[in-house]
């Protein structure tokens, strides 16, 4: 069965610093991987996704993520964090097309300090 682990519940970074949010997944085949961001009181916004091909994917708002099959990881990165990036970040894994749903991690809350 699919599962996602986000080991960091809460991360605090200074504005302008680099960011890496960790995500490990469990899935028997090549997964579809997603990162979503949720601001307080809002729904989830898709940041980026990996289906196949280049293992480094670019997303919106300057985010990128790298798929590493050997480590079953899909970590999210940003070279310079902005105060507006403060939010909850969710990693998710989906099966091949036609599957029912996504399996989400418990999320990582990002705090950005001036």
């Amino acid at each position, binding site marked *: 069965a699919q599962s*996602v682990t986000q080991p960091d*519940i809460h991360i605090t970074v200074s504005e302008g610093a680099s960011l890496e949010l960790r995500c490990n997944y469990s899935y028997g085949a090549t997964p*579809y991987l*997603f990162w*979503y961001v949720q601001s307080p*009181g*809002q*729904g*989830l*916004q*898709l940041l980026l*996704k990996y*289906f*196949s091909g280049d293992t480094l994917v670019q997303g919106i708002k300057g985010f990128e993520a790298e798929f590493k099959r050997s480590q079953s990881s899909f970590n999210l990165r940003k070279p310079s964090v902005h105060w507006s990036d403060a939010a909850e970040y*969710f990693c998710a894994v*989906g099966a*091949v*097309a*036609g*599957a*029912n*749903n*996504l*399996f*989400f*991690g*418990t*999320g990582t809350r990002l705090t950005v300090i001036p």
Partner: protein
Amino acid sequence: EADIYQTPRYLVIGTGKKITLECSQTMGHDKMYWYQQDPGMELHLIHYSYGVNSTEKGDLSSESTVSRIRTEHFPLTLESARPSHTSQYLCASSDARLAGGGDTQYFGPGTRLTVL
């Protein structure tokens, strides 16, 4: 940009009341989903639909029911609300016909339900 709407955004209601959470999307997506989200927890799928007249239960057992009479509309109903139903409910939709496969799901803003 996805266009998926949920109403109401916030609802406070007494125990035993019947409620319906609305979800609509204007993208013509076949698939729609309802997730339940509690603070500090992952999202759990409670219902999904592959299209009109199709509804299925998700991984998390829920006392709610859904219907899919029109492609764009996927309401969720609780016949008798209880405090244990207090949660955030997120609706999503996806179009599996898009090139490249996979189900990229687009989410609505959510309904935060409080049952007193």
